């Protein structure tokens, strides 16, 4: 596998204005951002719009973010607002905000308010997409209706029509990507692991930004090369899994893998495998398929009362990838992941799988020394 093959993934994963985004805009096409893995990308794909997951990378201060958000709020939405306020999301034709969590939900009004003070930073299509916290039949119905409304709103705003046919085609495209990523995950589960955690994570994060067709073909190429000759990356290293709050941060994985004995072989992050989720039903009503597929995945603690399901998924991943230690990270003020991490720690350690809990800020990785100190001790423990 050559470095060049990974370049496009890294570019998309580590830059706000990535080459892919610039190229797309250069063709005069539209881009809509979203803030959470519960927003069906297929809707935009079917409309010929590039859906990108919004990021908060490359911030160096929080002068805008802290103006609207209060002090006790997760730094992720603050970073997004900061970038918006600096005009760094000028490429967006639209943004979809969800009530992923309270902090994210407040991004809706904070962004609008910032827009009153700093003209031009609110994308023309600014949409609040409701996601219920329930998978019960009434929750599913609600979500279906929300999807229908979103489709309508996109059609109206962008003057186009999104047919069920097109949606089904998009579902197929996205499913293909999901299968490919699954394949990558399977490779990482082999004794050789084949790819470093940082590289694999770059591939996963890039999936939230790159045009799907391109992504699928690049990923297929990568997989082909890997499968022909699987590098023995694992090489006696400890196999780790990372999970928890929002993280699209390559630096964190690099820091972990900077330790000579550490390799990240799996993750359960909402910029990674959780974003992709399970494959959707390709036939039948595409709206129902999206509702079922997106809401049905209960891998995020915002779906209350489903801890046991999440634990089961985690256990399966751990067994499959032969994970020896789990790194549970959360962003400060993220109570959802922060406290669920403690439950995971309790239950995983009871099964003999050591866990390391880290609390940090989103944004440029700091406290490297502190994290390294704990990582060193953790790896000694394994």
């Amino acid at each position, binding site marked *: 596998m050559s470095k060049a093959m990974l370049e496009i993934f890294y570019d998309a994963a580590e830059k706000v204005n990535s080459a892919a985004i610039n190229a797309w805009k250069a063709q005069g096409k539209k881009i809509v951002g979203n803030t959470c893995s519960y927003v069906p990308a297929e809707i935009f794909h079917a409309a010929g719009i590039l859906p990108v997951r919004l990021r908060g990378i490359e911030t160096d201060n929080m002068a805008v973010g802290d103006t609207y958000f209060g002090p006790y709020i997760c730094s992720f939405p603050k970073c997004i607002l900061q970038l918006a306020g600096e005009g760094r999301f000028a490429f967006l034709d639209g943004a979809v905000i969800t009530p992923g969590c309270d902090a994210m939900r407040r991004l809706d009004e904070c962004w609008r308010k910032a827009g009153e003070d700093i003209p031009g930073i609110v994308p023309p299509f600014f949409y609040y997409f409701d996601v219920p916290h329930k998978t019960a039949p009434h929750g599913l119905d609600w979500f279906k209706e929300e999807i229908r409304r979103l489709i309508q709103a996109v059609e109206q705003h962008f003057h186009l029509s999104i047919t069920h046919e097109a949606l089904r085609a998009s579902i197929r495209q996205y499913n293909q990507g999901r299968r490919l990523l699954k394949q990558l995950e399977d490779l990482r589960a082999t004794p050789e692991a084949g790819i470093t955690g940082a590289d694999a994570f770059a591939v996963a994060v890039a999936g939230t930004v790159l045009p799907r067709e391109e992504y699928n073909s690049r990923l297929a190429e990568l997989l082909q090369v890997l499968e022909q000759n699987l590098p023995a990356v694992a090489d006696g290293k400890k196999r780790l899994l990372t999970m928890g709050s929002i993280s699209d941060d390559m630096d964190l994985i690099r820091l972990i893998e900077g330790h000579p004995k550490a390799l990240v072989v799996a993750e359960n992050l909402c910029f990674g495998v959780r974003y992709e989720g399970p494959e959707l039903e390709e036939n039948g009503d595409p709206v129902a398929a999206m509702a079922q597929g997106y809401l049905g995945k209960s891998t995020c603690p915002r779906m209350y009362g489903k801890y046991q399901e999440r634990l089961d998924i985690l256990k399966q991943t751990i067994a499959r990838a032969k994970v020896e230690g789990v790194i549970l990270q959360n962003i*400060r003020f993220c109570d959802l992941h922060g406290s669920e991490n403690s439950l995971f720690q309790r239950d995983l*350690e009871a099964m003999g799988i050591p866990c390391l*809990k*880290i*609390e*940090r800020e989103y944004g440029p990785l700091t*406290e490297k*020394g*502190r994290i*390294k*100190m*704990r*990582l*060193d*001790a953790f790896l*000694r*423990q394994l």
Partner: protein
Amino acid sequence: MTLTAGCDVGSLTAKAVIMRDGRIIGAQVVKSRAKPEISAKEAMAGALTAARVALEDVAACVGTGYGREKIPFVKEVVSEIACHAKGAKWLVSSARTVIDIGGQDCKAMRIDEHGEVIKFITNDKCASGTGRFLDVMARVLGISVDELGRLSAGAKQPVTLASTCTVWAQADVIKYLNSGIAVADIGAGINIAMANRVAILANSVKAEHDVCMTGGVAKNNGVVQTLAQLLGRRITVPRKADPQLAGAIGAAIIAGQL
């Protein structure tokens, strides 16, 4: 007759220890400087002088602490969590829970009979559970950290402090001081606030059996006593050597196993 050394460059102090056959023959604590290599050299020079040996005689030296990557003369670097565990084990052989409070962090760990870490936790929220907190407060009170530790004993009605931010707690202390509240009561309040923060950590690893405390703050009797009350366990403060040296001692022991 091999000589080993450990060097622990912390945020506030740098410590070096020379050991021969499991005994300390020289040790030194110096204040940390802006450049860790200088602190390390100073501490090591002091320890070598005390031990009356030369650096060339030392078979292996292990470095630890925040500045560990910058120590020029070490063979290997090891995380301070592991070093403190080993050091604590050497200092108090029955210890199974170690609480180490240094200048800028606080760790609680459970260790096995070989001094290996089974479970640990460190504070990552704010400096208010660390030695820095005490330093800042002692400065406001115009006393030394030594005295601060002794104040608890004479307190009648300890004050309650806002304990989430060191700097704000400082404002509270100034206010109490100015309104004429006895220094002992304020000092005790400071030690209690500190112990409260630490107790949360210690309880999260489920403090067990013999609890031993290391790091500079172990010398603060007020904190140790309050913490013991909060945990409902006796806390042993090492007497074999200065508890502040635990990290360096652990490093020297690990150096012997290389």
